[in-house]
């Protein structure tokens, strides 16, 4: 392989090389430092005059004396069944002291878009055991549902609880977890790893770790490695894969850093104008394919800077993902776990996964009624602050109490409390029964007759 020593400029994570043979766009590059250390990078821009290489590790130690080797192929990763149970670095190298991955296949980490015509419609209800998800924001196999959280909130606990408890009731198919950490702290890593080991989840898991002190640019490839692995496990080996990506905010920061180094015209708040497309190239790698056994379900976690849901990162994510689970600071302060605020939360695929034969016939209507009741109760809290509780009508007082009970009984549950969907819906009915019956306008009368505690023995 030819080695070039024609580096002309180094800026942040970018290295510019001139007078090369034709180099392919997206090609994998090895950079040999004068001390013999080899770093990896990728071609971002190529012409017959100058080639721009993005280095996935720190550029510290790279000088004009570095040797540049173009490998002639785009970034591919070795994948194989024996990846299960392994812990890898953010760039895919073994981190657990084990042997290298025995490749069954080498796949392009950028993947390819699933042909919409080849997709099968997601329809299998995943029971997470968490009421605010199962009953009101149902997760469905093949869905991409992120958790929007904030700094200092227990999103990791929620993600772990989901990873522990998630199952398709009545199914015993092979499942796997692919976990990709981007820029998380060592402590967070310990938390995840301890839980994986405690529950024995590690043997079904592939873990990619890019920690806070690993190079930011590496974060650019970590989720792609994870998703390539997930697609291989799902669509070639038939696993039902749950991918957990955390924290997408760190990924976007890395994207901005690279964009700034390339002197691109920035979009909102300095993030690159193509961030939507870039995020889509990750989030859209979830789904089910007709005629293939497995599935990829994505649960990504992002922390909203300043708890601001209109910040570009949650905003663009929300436009791509199929809903969002929003973790709320106020509920957290009240000591409620999991502090999921159902109001801004949403699962777009909920209707595909619920109803008779999947969950229960009253599922949708109970959920809608609880939403409406909770929204009304929360509004009334504002009024109570001004006029006092006694000034409310009898009806309004009931709604106010409903909102409190909803948070206390329905939202609140234990870290290891695994509620079945029937339990969650029955808790819902219990709470709704405290409202005047004629206020239950979202529910058909025959369902009320069947499920309302008043009519049930």
């Amino acid at each position, binding site marked *: 392989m030819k080695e070039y020593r024609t580096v002309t400029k180094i800026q942040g994570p970018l290295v510019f090389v001139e007078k090369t043979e034709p180099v392919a766009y997206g090609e994998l590059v090895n950079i040999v430092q004068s001390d013999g250390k080899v770093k990896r990078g990728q071609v971002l821009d190529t012409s017959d005059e100058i080639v721009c290489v993005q280095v996935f590790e720190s550029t510290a130690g790279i000088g004009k004396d570095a040797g540049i080797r173009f490998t002639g192929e785009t970034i591919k990763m070795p994948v194989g069944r024996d990846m299960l149970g392994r812990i890898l670095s953010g760039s895919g190298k073994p981190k657990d002291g084990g042997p290298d991955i025995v490749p069954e296949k080498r796949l392009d980490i950028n993947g390819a878009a699933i042909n919409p015509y080849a997709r099968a419609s997601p329809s299998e209800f995943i029971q997470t055991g968490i009421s605010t998800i199962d009953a009101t924001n149902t997760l469905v196999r093949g869905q991409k549902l992120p958790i929007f959280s904030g700094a200092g909130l227990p999103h990791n606990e929620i993600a772990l609880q989901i990873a522990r408890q998630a199952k398709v009731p009545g199914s015993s198919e092979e499942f796997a977890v692919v976990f990709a950490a981007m820029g998380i702290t060592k402590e967070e890593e310990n938390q995840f790893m301890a839980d994986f080991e405690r529950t024995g989840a590690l043997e079904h898991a592939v873990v990619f770790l890019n920690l806070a002190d690993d190079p930011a640019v590496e974060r650019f490839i970590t989720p792609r490695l994870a998703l390539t692995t997930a697609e291989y496990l799902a669509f070639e080996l038939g696993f039902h894969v749950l991918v957990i990506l955390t924290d997408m905010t760190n990924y976007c920061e890395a994207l901005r850093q690279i964009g700034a180094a390339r002197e691109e015209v920035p979009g*909102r708040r300095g993030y690159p104008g193509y961030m*939507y497309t870039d995020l889509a190239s990750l989030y*859209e790698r979830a789904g089910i394919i007709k005629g293939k056994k497995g599935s990829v379900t994505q649960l990504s976690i992002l922390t909203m800077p300043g708890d601001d849901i209109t910040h570009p990162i949650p905003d663009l994510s929300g436009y791509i993902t199929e809903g969002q689970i929003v973790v709320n600071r106020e509920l957290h302060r009240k000591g409620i776990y999991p502090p999921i605020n159902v109001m801004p939360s949403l699962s777009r695929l909920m209707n595909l996964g619920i109803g008779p034969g999947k969950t229960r016939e009253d599922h949708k209507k109970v959920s809608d009624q609880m*939403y409406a009741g909770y929204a009304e109760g929360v509004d009334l809290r504002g009024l109570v602050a001004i006029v006092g509780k006694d000034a409310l009508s009898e009806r309004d007082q009931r709604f106010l109490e409903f909102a409190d009970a909803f948070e206390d009984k329905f939202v609140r549950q234990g870290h290891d409390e695994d509620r079945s969907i029937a339990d969650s819906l029955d808790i819902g009915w219990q709470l709704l029964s405290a409202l005047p019956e004629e206020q239950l306008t979202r529910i058909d009368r025959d369902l009320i007759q069947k499920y309302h505690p008043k009519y049930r023995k």
Partner: protein
Amino acid sequence: MEVKSKTKGILKRISGPVVTAVNFDAHMYDVVRVGNEQLMGEVIKIDGDKVIIQVYESTDGVRPGEPVENTGLPLAVELGPGLLTSIYDGIQRPLEVLMEKMGSFIERGVNAPGLDHEKKWDFKPVMKKGDEAAPGAIIGEVQETNIVTKIMVPPNFKGGKITEIKKGAFTVDDIVCKLDSGEEICMMQKWPVRVPRPVIEKKNPDVPLLTGLRILDGLFPVAKGGTAAIPGPFGSGKTVTQQSLAKWSDAEIVVYIGCGERGNEMTEVLTEFPELEDPKTGKPLMERTVLIANTSNMPVAAREASVYTGITIAEYFRDMGYDVSLMADSTSRWAEAMREISSRLEEMPGEEGYPAYLSARLSEFYERAGRVEALNGNMGSITVIGAVSPPGGDFSEPVTQNTLRIVKCFWALDAKLSQRRHFPAINWLNSYSLYLNSLGKYYDEKISPEFNPIRSWAMEVLQKESELQEIVQLVGSDALPEAEQVTIEVARMLREVFLQQNAFDAVDAYCSMEKQFDMLKAIRKYADLAYSAQKAGSPIAAIIAVKSKNELARIKYVADYKPELEKILSDMDAEFVKIREA
């Protein structure tokens, strides 16, 4: 001397979807084949001897020095029998064919024509030898689904007397008609997507596009041939509303463009539409639908093109005399594709990094809507309904603002409403329709002369409620004067009974104009009875507690609602008699 143009050049630079080639002749928007894999691209800038090309497929692995070939033709779509029920990517490659050729994932360098060139269609001439066939004239028909595709003389032909016309089964390439001008007509015609198809005249729209959605038909109607925008933050129900419109609007042809949106959503459309029935014909909805799916992870340049591909197909059906409705979900993703390409070209950015020509492109697109007299004298229309996805739900951003300057209907989605599961989450105070006047006559004649007044009444009540709500927020509803407490209750009924609609309920998903009118009249009846009882001094608590009115919400879910409605209304009379007697 013959000037020989150089159709082949070589690649000089590759930067993502934008590549630079040198050493060949090109015109703006020529379609070129890039690299050894012959990726499809389009010329978007010419600078000295450099030709800048946007490529519709991923350019990973492409090197400087690889060849570029100019086809010399602009990006065009194939128009003819076989469009209906198809699903295409942004550059009219049938996704079904792509799947056969390359499996479940979309790989590169595969060429697939928009129409099936093997299949034979039964061509029935409607003109005969000796007839004069001008450009746009309908010379024959193909019964495709339950919809007839009309075969027209392409608008760019000279036209002339028919010297020969055939009948029978032909492929789209077979010549079915010859003219004395020497022109030969086959069933397929090609049309460049960036050029609007010509018409004789644009007319003012005066017929509503009935959608079965109460808030739209009742309060903010769009006209056939009109334009509407649905802006809203994520999760407010843009896509559900767009899909409801695609399902239930009384257009004859629906073109649905999934532009930079979710893959699973397109799958939902694909699985749902063949099963749903058109309320008018009883045939599967898919039979009147053309889908274009360029999901967010498919190449960004093809996303830019998808909107043009869609509207050109819509124009083709409009020229046959059909009422077409076109849904573009989402125009913001289209604008972002423009921004991405523009930034790769290192153009001077306008507002928020969008190119300075954003406004011009948007208005050019929406202007291709309209009710027109086609070249052949048929009246056809295209209604364009564009979803807008403003970042952070902020309507002051450039795409929303530039869209608002053009469209006549504004259906503002509201996250607050969707959070409390009020669907469709269209805010009745912020939304508007500028078609109310031009459509007034239609409502007077086709529905009832009482309809327009009752609509104004409903809007007034809702407006009044929002003012009263500000007071209620401060002092509680009991502190309001009694008449205003009635207003609050009537407004609540309007919201919960009339405006809320369940797109997932088999009956409620589509509401006929007659039922809409009956529902409004029933609410009006309660209001009249309540105000007069209140004036007569009956206790307000009893007026608001009238039980029968709570039943009104349930008739939404009843197909044969009339008997139930009558019972509710007579119960209501009886209850008010009791209240006044007490």
